[in-house]
């Protein structure tokens, strides 16, 4: 095994492993304030969504909630992917901001809980969200009979346990190992996390794909698109980088990490946001073009619903607001190196990513685009709960992996 060599490399990498970092790396009282506000907004938002949406099992609430849930999930899932990626490639630039990513990934524990309002009614036979829950519907279409082995509530529930179990497990693993290193300074933990990352990445790819298929694609049980998981994934990447930018800016405004996180880190996060607006478009268009070209009825009806009649302006708006606007908006180096403009870009991407989720979910319920008050209430609610959960966890850990052997490289990192 090349193990000892690997370890030596890492010590050589660090130079100053375990050095004292001259920066504020613990959240103070301001975190309690944010936690209370976010938790309050979260609970009120969810309750309002239930009330405005006509009750837990009502179609409107279910659709509004699913939109918000998939939006929130994309931040946590994106964060788990991001953290795994940093370990997979042995990234140096990102160490200074990695703890924030680890904390965001930890929100997957919360997302497991938040999936219950979708999964439990389904288990009880409620088909207000997924028509395939009803046996009559499954019997009504010959195509669906072939899918019954996959599309049934018990198997769906089993899959949910696998997805959220795997994600929560890995998110907790990466956070705990990293935090343990803060105390022990054990560089072998870095190697261990590096070794865990390839399988985590493969597992992530499979679980996220199937999760997107289950929660979003199966809204239309007949329709199928093999690239759909990647489509959702592209949104996850946009969401997590945007969320990290906003989290870091908030931390720095409160006086934390001010010397550790530099404009170079923001620049790189901004580059990922920029790159993945193009990636999203690439995937979205690939999906569209193959279906458009082949022109097979059971595939085209999903687009027909969105491209004809009242949904057409909404679809056009998504195409423009999700591609040319952020693409040209984030293209300039100056914009990515300026915290104010980058924060604007991050907020914009998070909003437009929600609209993307809305565009996936809402046509299942409404013949024309209507923004229901419950849509916004659920969105704010899920967002508030995620912020509260992340802040709650963040209070007990360092905001910087202080004894990561690659930390010094990250602190000194510069874009050429």
């Amino acid at each position, binding site marked *: 095994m090349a193990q000892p060599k690997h370890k030596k490399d890492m010590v050589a990498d660090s130079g100053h492993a375990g050095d004292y970092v001259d920066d504020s790396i613990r959240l103070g009282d301001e975190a309690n304030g944010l936690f209370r506000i976010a938790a309050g907004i979260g609970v009120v938002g969810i309750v309002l969504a239930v009330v405005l949406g006509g009750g837990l099992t009502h179609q409107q609430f279910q659709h509004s909630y699913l939109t918000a849930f998939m939006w929130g999930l994309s931040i946590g899932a994106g964060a788990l992917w991001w953290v795994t990626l940093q370990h997979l490639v042995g990234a140096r630039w990102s160490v200074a901001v990695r703890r924030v990513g680890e904390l965001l990934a930890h929100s997957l524990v919360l997302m497991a809980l938040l999936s219950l309002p979708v999964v439990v009614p389904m288990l009880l036979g409620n088909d207000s969200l997924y028509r395939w829950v009803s046996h009559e519907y499954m019997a009504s279409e010959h195509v669906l009979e072939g899918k019954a082995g996959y599309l049934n509530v018990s198997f769906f529930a089993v899959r949910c346990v696998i997805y959220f179990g795997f994600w929560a497990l890995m998110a907790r693993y990466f956070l705990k190992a990293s935090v343990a290193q803060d105390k022990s300074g054990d560089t072998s933990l870095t190697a261990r996390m590096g070794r865990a990352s390839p399988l985590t990445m493969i597992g992530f790819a499979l679980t996220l794909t199937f999760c997107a298929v289950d929660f979003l694609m199966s809204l239309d049980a007949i329709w199928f698109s093999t690239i759909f998981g990647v489509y959702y994934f592209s949104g996850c990447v946009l969401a997590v980088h945007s969320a990290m930018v906003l989290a870091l800016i908030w931390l720095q405004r409160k006086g934390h990490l001010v010397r550790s996180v530099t404009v170079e880190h923001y620049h790189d996060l901004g580059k990922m946001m920029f790159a993945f607006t193009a990636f999203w478009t690439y995937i979205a268009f690939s999906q569209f073009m193959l279906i458009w070209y082949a022109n097979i*009825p059971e595939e085209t009806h999903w687009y027909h619903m969105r491209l004809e009649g009242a949904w057409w302006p909404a679809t056009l708006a998504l195409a423009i607001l999700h591609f040319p606007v952020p693409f040209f908006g984030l293209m300039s180096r100056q914009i990515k190196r300026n915290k104010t403009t980058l924060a604007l870009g991050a907020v914009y991407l998070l909003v437009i990513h929600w609209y993307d989720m809305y565009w996936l979910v809402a046509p299942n319920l409404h013949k024309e685009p209507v923004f229901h008050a419950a849509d916004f209430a659920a969105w704010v609610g899920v967002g508030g709960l995620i912020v509260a959960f992340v802040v709650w966890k963040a209070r007990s850990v360092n905001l910087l992996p202080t004894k990561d052997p690659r930390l010094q490289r990250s602190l000194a990192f510069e874009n050429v």
Partner: protein
Amino acid sequence: MSDTQAIQAEAGPAPLHGLLAEYDNPTALVRAAKKVRDAGYAHWDTFTPFPIHGIERAMGIRMTRLPWLVFVAALIGLANGVLLQFLTNAWDYKWLVSGKPFWSWPANVPIAFEMTILYSAFAALGGMLIFNNLPLPAHPLDLKERFARVTDDRFFLLIEARDGKFDEVDTRRLLESTEPLLLDEVLEDRVTSDKIPRALIYTLIVAGAASLVPFAAFTAARARHSEKPRIHAIWDMDFQPKFKAQRANPLFDDNRAMRKPVAGTVATGALRDDDHMYRGRVGDAWATTYPAGVQVTEETLRVGRDKYNVFCAPCHGFAGEGDGMVHKRAETLGQGWVPPSNLHQEYLRLQPVGELFNSITNGVRNMPAYGPQIEPDDRWAIVMYVRALQRSRASGLGDLSEAERSGLK
């Protein structure tokens, strides 16, 4: 190397190219670069074994303009990609592909995208070379044996003599103040040319011109007519061992290349097993009611009116009196014409809706069948509209509400 030096020596004393300072660490080089930058020199450069962060700031180098060049090239590539496809598919050589319009944007995106990337990449590479004055086949520093260590562990700074601020004494003093390991004069290389070899340039020009020959040949071929059979470059693509649709195939008894579907095959969505809906029959009699799938609403009536005005009115007239434009024209021609029915005749008013539906579907007397042209639900909508027309001519007091009746009086 020594041969070159010998030739150099024979050529006599060379003019000064510049002053070279040598350092053994990047920090010293960056410090020196800042000094030279602040002294206001324009023609100077640094040489390092690896990229040094911050050196471009220390040297006062502006942000490159390359991105703008790439951006413009990208736009040109995009425009060319779209134009290429427009000219070939929608203008010069229209070819119907799977029923799509000749010009439809989704089909154009991949090629437009690739062209954008291709032009960007070329602009980035070419622009980088041009902005850096590359390729540069020779440089006076090549003659310095010590300079070879720049690929290993030494850092150099060169101020060129052609700089307006260059002064052999002042510049030397400035460089000495940066505490170099060594300060050395660099002489011009009078033997090796720093120009790109002529032969290479001519070869490139000839190769570039030659690459246009096939295009010229294509253009010439398109402008002329030829009696010769076409050239088959790829035989197994032009002559494939397969039977095409609508051709004879001796392998089967019926000599058809296309196989008939299995008896009883129904196309997706084409199952017509609802007698009421598709044939207007309930049991053994004509249906007297509308099928379950047809809603008796104003919306349906509106659809019925639109379809009636398109398909029926030309003969039966807009009000159903059998006086449509076709009928009028036939009358003036006077060549014998069975007039279309007046829809307000009693026997038609009393006909069950199912029978009316059947007449539309399969035709009656010399009225042709409209089933193949009009969707079943639209045919029912027409029946509904015809009923409304009939009612409009045969209504009585009983059709009015109490209030309306009293209003009449």
